[in-house]
């Protein structure tokens, strides 16, 4: 019973997923050049989740993201060039280069920030949801988190808190099978994430995170529930990541051919193209055009970021009150 989506909706969803994919594939190359410093966690492979969720949201809805946040940012409407500049540590970045990949945020877009602390987004999202509840306009807050984050006390507390205060929070768990170099089947003692959220008293749906349509439909149901004030919910989406945990990860913990196999069998973009082909909802040609445009956008973003200036040293002590100089 897939929900009908218009051609425009489908094209936009495809463009969003493709933009995330190319953004990350390009970063993977750029990072090798050594120009990008610090920790970068790529989202390739999980695009259907970010987009399948955010296609339901508008700017007044709020999301809280993770260390693997580029996809969530793009899906929520952050400016791709300003994101790239931030990751390059430039003054033109969304955070003036002071936050970097793990801290991209755009509060005007309802994107309350990627986060370097696994699980910290849970409580923050419940707080954002409380704000939405107090305003009473049917807004919601989405907390993105991975399979590893459900072992963090903060997330478990947040799930209980959300139920207790009946906040319109939706916990989206992206189960990509690993937390860093450890399997979810090991670190999640029960091997069953959905059962946890249910035990906290939440409506919970588990679905295929590599299928945009499955994600979209699941979220439609949960969002109706949350927006109607019926309480918080959880979605567990099974997915995979196409790169290492962070750039530079040799991935010894994965079977030799795992990534190759997943790129063949679990690629949400391929899946999308296949299903719209069979249903005839979109023409390949239209998507080819998008592919072209996306590549140009990313190229432009990288060139602009490279050319942009670093923040000036004075920025070290701005955006924070200073005492004891």
């Amino acid at each position: 019973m897939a929900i009908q989506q218009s051609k425009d909706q489908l094209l936009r969803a495809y463009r969003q997923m493709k933009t995330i994919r190319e953004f990350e594939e390009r970063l993977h190359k750029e990072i090798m050049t050594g120009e990008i410093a610090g920790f970068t966690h790529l989202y390739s492979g999980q695009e259907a989740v970010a987009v399948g969720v955010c296609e339901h949201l508008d700017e007044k809805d709020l999301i809280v993201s993770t260390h693997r946040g580029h996809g969530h940012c793009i899906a929520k409407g952050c400016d791709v060039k300003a994101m790239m500049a931030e990751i390059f540590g430039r003054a033109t970045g969304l955070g003036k280069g002071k936050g970097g990949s793990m801290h991209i945020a755009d509060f005007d877009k309802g994107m309350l920030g990627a986060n370097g602390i696994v699980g910290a987004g849970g409580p923050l999202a419940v707080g954002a949801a409380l704000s939405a509840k107090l305003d009473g306009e049917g807004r919601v807050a989405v907390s993105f988190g991975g399979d590893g984050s459900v072992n963090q006390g903060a997330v478990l507390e947040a799930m209980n808190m959300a139920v207790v205060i009946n906040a319109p929070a939706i916990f989206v768990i992206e189960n990509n099978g690993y937390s860093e170099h450890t399997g979810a089947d090991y670190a999640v003692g029960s091997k069953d994430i959905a059962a946890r959220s249910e035990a906290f008293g939440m409506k919970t749906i588990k679905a295929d995170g590599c299928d945009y349509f499955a994600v979209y439909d699941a979220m439609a149901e949960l969002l109706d529930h949350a927006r109607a004030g019926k309480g918080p919910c959880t979605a567990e989406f099974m997915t995979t990541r196409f790169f290492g945990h962070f750039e530079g990860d040799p991935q010894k913990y994965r079977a030799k051919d795992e990534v190759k196999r997943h790129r063949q069998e679990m690629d949400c973009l391929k899946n999308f193209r296949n299903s719209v082909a069979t249903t005839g909802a979109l023409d390949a040609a239209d998507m080819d055009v998008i592919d072209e445009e996306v590549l140009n956008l990313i190229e432009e973003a990288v060139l602009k970021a490279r050319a942009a200036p670093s923040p000036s040293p004075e920025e070290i002590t701005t955006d924070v009150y200073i005492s004891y100089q």
Partner: protein
Amino acid sequence: MTVMTYRDALNQVMHQEMERDSNVFVCGEDVSGGAGGTSGEREASGGIFGVTSGLLPKFGEDRVIDTPISENTIVGLAVGASLAGKRGIAEIMFADFLGLALDQTMNQAAKFRYMSGGKAKCPVVIRVPYGAGMNMAAQHSQTMYQIITSVPGLKVVMPSNPADAKGLLTTAIRDDDPVVFFEHKAMYGRKGEVPDGEYLVPFGQAALVNEGDDATIIAMGRMVTFAEKSLAGLKDDGVNCDLIDLRTTSPLDEDTILDSVEKTGRVVVVDECPPRCSVASDIAGFIASHGFSSLKAPVQQVTAPHSPVPFSKDLERAYVPGPAHIDAAVRKVVSYK
């Protein structure tokens, strides 16, 4: 002016500010009490120290939120809501429990504005009863403000009397940066004159509680009350001191400190913390770096010993810095040749 307790002054501010700004809300364990259960009365406690009493009946359950025992999430709840347009006041029942909530306080609230290049605003207030003196032992008596003062991005407030409690909490709630507000458990019942109506005390402006040329006593929170006690006895012996009440340890009123040190050249810092990386050492170090030329004697640091807080009455009494310790330190510093 009305005479009221430190507790009532704080309570009045929350009533006034929730009245004034519908974005202000309160959350914490038993801030009203009586949720669920067989509930005789709905507002069964109004906060374990009674500081939030009367808020629930007036502002309702949406804005006066009893929470489960989840300190990190209590702070996160207030922080998340404040990032999304509200002004949350989170009560952590005992400052010691910041040990559970430090991530949301230090890694989240303190850093959003900076990491976002100034786009984020996090106007949250975290209220924490702190300090020893009530025989609550090692896990319910810590100071914690030295730890929070060390974190860039957090403002640290320590009222020593009812008037400041009112003026500083009002300022804290209206401030756009995260504020950790330290209330000494043993001071809730302390009475004093409090200005009526709206009253704000700015951050970073210490109070010169007493003036004298012989020495400078610098204190904060409850230690100010002990310093005041010691002044009389000293005066009888002709020793007159400046007494500086820092009011906020971060931001720090450096000018008031340096002006007084320049005048007296002799300094006693009084701090309830254990000595290491304490506010006492922080101020003593600041003076050694920026007020050295005026110093005529070693800076005396009056602090707790470097041990946990003991339970037994007699031990705790001896553990907490008091008027006698201050008196001795002042006499030492003024007699130094």
